[in-house]
């Protein structure tokens, strides 16, 4: 996309309720390219800005299945296919003995998928981000709540948007330069 002069406009709030309310209204006003920032997870905030379903569970499920099947096959291959050898008179495929490792690998792979999955979906790591340009934003990790309408939004129009943000109770509205 064409390089825009600014990344967007950011409004500051002092309570999760205020932010939630503002987010709802911004969404209702037809803004779509918006994001809300809070020092702790606020229920319904994501939904308020139109984010409903996440693919994290699916990723974890896939990881689990890979771990489970792979884990068992590894042991089966070792004990039955690669070098079948009589261990204490037990059958080559003593599947009950293979359960613990299968289980552990299921957990392991699933967890790895969960962790790296969420990072990937969140596009992290991303040490640099335009929002950090806003001086007050460092309070986003303390006790302040921010709503950012990005310049790429169809309805974004600097002056009007700024006025809109002030209307919905922004304690201060800042330009986020990109």
């Amino acid at each position, binding site marked *: 996309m064409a390089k825009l002069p600014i990344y967007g406009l950011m409004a500051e709030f002092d309570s999760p309720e205020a932010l939630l309310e503002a987010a709802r209204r911004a969404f209702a006003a037809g803004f779509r390219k918006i994001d809300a920032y809070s020092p702790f997870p606020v229920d319904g905030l994501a939904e308020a800005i139109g984010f409903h379903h996440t693919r994290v569970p699916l990723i974890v499920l896939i990881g689990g299945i890979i771990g489970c099947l792979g884990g068992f096959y590894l042991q089966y291959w070792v004990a039955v296919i690669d070098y079948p*050898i*009589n*261990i*204490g*008179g*037990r*059958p080559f495929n*003593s599947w009950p003995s293979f359960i613990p490792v299968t289980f552990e690998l299921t957990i392991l792979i699933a967890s790895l998928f969960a962790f790296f999955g969420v990072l990937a979906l969140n596009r992290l790591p991303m040490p640099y981000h335009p929002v950090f340009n806003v001086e007050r934003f460092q309070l986003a990790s303390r006790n302040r709540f921010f709503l950012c309408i990005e310049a790429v939004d169809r309805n974004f129009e600097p002056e009007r948007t700024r006025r809109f943000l002030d209307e919905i109770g922004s304690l201060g509205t800042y330009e986020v330069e990109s």
Partner: protein
Amino acid sequence: MSNGMDPAGLLGIAQQSAGGREYWRSLEELAGTEAFKDLIGNHLPRHAAAFTSAMDRREFLTLMGASLALAGISGCLSPAPAPPDEKIVPYVNQPEALVPGKPLYFATAIPVEGYGRGVLVESHMGRPTKVEGNPQHPASLGATDAVTQASVLELYDPDRSRVITNAGRVATWDAFFSALNVELESQRVTQGAGLRILTETVTSPTLAAQLQEILRIFPKAKWHQFDGGGGDYAHQGARMAFGQPFETLYRLEEADVIVSLDADFLLRSPASLRYAREFINRRRIPGGSDEANRLYMIESTFSLTGSNADHRLAIAPSAIPQLARTLAARVGVQISAEQPAISPAQEKWLGALVKDLQAHRGRSAIMPGEYQPAIVHALAHAMNDALGNIGKTVFYTDPVAVNPTNHAESFRELVRDLEENAAQVLIILGGNPAYTAPAELDFAGHLVTSNFNVHLSLYEDETSAVCHWHIPQAHYLESWSDVRAYDGTVTIMQPLIAPLYGGRTAHEILAAVAGQAERASYEIVHDYWRGQNKAKNFDAAWRTALHDGFIAGSALSPRNVKAKPATSFETSEPKRASTGAATKNPPSLEVIYRPDPSIIDGRFANNGWLQELPKPLTKLTWDNAVLMSPATATRLGLTYRVGGTGGEHGTIYADVVELEYDGRRTRGPAWIVAGHADDCVTIHLGYGRRRAGRVGTNLGFNANILRTLDTLWHGASIAVRKTGAQYALACTQFHHLMEGRDLVRAGTIEQYRKNPKFLIERESEKEAPGTLYPGYKYDGYAWGMSIDVNACIGCNACVAACHAENNGPVVGKQEVLRGREMHWIRIDRYHRGEPSNPETYHQPVPCMQCENAPCELVCPVGATTHSQDGLNDMVYNRCVGTRYCSNNCPYKVRRFNFFLYSDFKTESLKPLRNPDVTVRSRGVMEKCTYCVQRINQAKIAAEKEDRVVRDGEIEPACQQACPTRAIIFGNINDPQSRVTQLKTQPLSYGLLTELNTRPRTTYQAKLRNPNPEIENG
């Protein structure tokens, strides 16, 4: 693997050994290392300072294990292929008979206390590595004892003396010879009045001839005999009874009732291996014999034989002659002296015994103990005569020992001559009198009076230290010589290897005395027999003799004898030392001295294998102790404490007592032995050595300090004081109760006759343990073993043999104290009944080779797995050392290398290693493999002939050594094999089968044959 050696090859060896050098080089080439060559060259012996800290000793003891570079030093050290530039060193001229990589077997004999035992020695590329029994030899019958097994370690012992010394300085043979000649010149004048020769018991015909020759040259010279073990009461007894010093032989296979008057014939006899076999052959039930024999033992200390007796009477040593007299009277020997009354208990016992004897006239045997006074021997002869046993179970031949004399008197005379300065030239051939002789004589002190004395011995020992000259003796595996067995059978001893340390034989010394310095023993022996030989073709005869390991028909023929009336001798009391009045406080007891079961009179003190061998009954290692009965211990207020480390399988803290006899004192730990006679203590000789070598020096305490010539074996009134100190003894099995577990199943023959299955009708067998898993099919071979507890006498031969065959390391006392000894097969000893007179069981426990092996299941790296033959393989090089397998082994037969126990440094020990067995490194588990190396060799041999392995073709080391054939190995898939037959017998049972381990090693239950009259009522 019988004597697989053809005369041609043998001749080859003979020639080489005569010349020596080539043979030797082949060895050197094989080891191919600088260090090894050094060792061979004349270098000053490295006199190691006596190790102070225990850790050092352990460090050094790792030396006493053994391995050759070829046997894989890289062993478990590196998983990668061996270093890039390893050298491979071929012969220059390859000996005819030798196929690289294949062992050869040569027949010779090991002289133990003068008497010979036929052996076959396994030789790898010129290195003797293992000694086996010679099946054709009457004194061996294919079996060996622990000492024989360990003798090969003695051969390579780096502590053996390596150079001739004169007053401690290195000298040469020529220097010695000239010095000797100077003395002999002066002796010639006096016809050798000042010449004395001191030997141990001599049976060698060649040596005898040489001695006669010398006595001819020097008519006034004297030949003395003193044997650390001997005492020679047997011959005196015979003299008493028959007027001649006959040798007494027994044919135990013919005896239904055996009465042993303190005769430990299963362990301490030149014929022990044969006697053990004959004794047990009559007890194999169900076996050939219908009637089992019955053994009555009358003794003071608890001997191995006693532990195998059906009835034991433990009485003080002083009481034995009296009891013998009483017994003699009861069996119809003319006894004039009136019989003192005896206790009702003994009365009952004796009554039953006499009845039994009378019932078996001509089928019984009275055996007097080697250490009993002559009178007891004489009485025994009289009894055998009275019972008509002579010629049936008891035989007499001319003495095997040359010129049997009373060693005590002979030695006393020598010391007197030294005192009176009558003995100027003294030649000591073997033995170690400065240590073994009673301290009262101060032999060492008197030696200085003689102006020339020389000591020939394997080690620079206590005697060498006080002699002017010391000459390294050639080990029997390095020597040409000859020796007679208990029955007179002659073996011509041939060397397996040229003397490692340039040792000389007694023959060579005597030749020198006779003025022929450069005669090699090969010539001497060869010429002697050429002289003896009447037959035309001597060379053929000679070769056959060497090949067979004995001269056929050289056994002495029985003489028919008649005992003199007992009245002529029965009153003659054995001389007893006039000792300080028997005091009550401190309590004074009778004392019994006996050679140590493992190291005898100390001659094997530097032998790590024997030191670490648990003594048959006490299971002590590395120490001797003051043995006494529980009652006596209580009376003296002596106790013990089970150590917190090692505990029952390692450390026992015993009270130290001070012993005083005739003002001479020493201290030693007290050890309580169930079944020991009350009010007397037993002390084993051979310990407290001061110059034994790095292994044997300063172990235990020296009993010879207390001994006197009159009380060589028994003494009255020794004072025993509790000191309050405690001493840590290394004991491998202190817990001797079975805690109600049927590990050893025992009953009587009576019970068996009533119901042969009486021992296996137990809960554990009733419902066969089920399993979810389908069984594993073993088509082809399925190796198994059956051990007959009934036949095991607990002699330790199997333990030593296993150690020798499988390159077992020696870990040292400190590690045994921690419970870390490394024997792959152990002999568990259990007691039952009241402590004063318990029943004893010996149970050899190797790996059970379980089909459902618990150890395999838990190994994370698959280092122990099952083979197609159902063996429980242990792969050292895969082992990471979790030790989980050992925890999960119900039989606790696995052994772990907690430290680097095997020696990878000492060059002289490397040739000893069995090249077919990996030398285990630090951090790996190991265990009995059923001697898988032998199994594989047999299988390969069979495959190459496109046949199957024959039954009995494979003998594990333990089976091969066993004197009583208690261990049988074979293929349990073959219904005809002996092991299968045994396993189907009603007495066959498995250990802990309720755990569903399905052990391949099973046992035959123990059957006693008690006299009902004594047993019940």
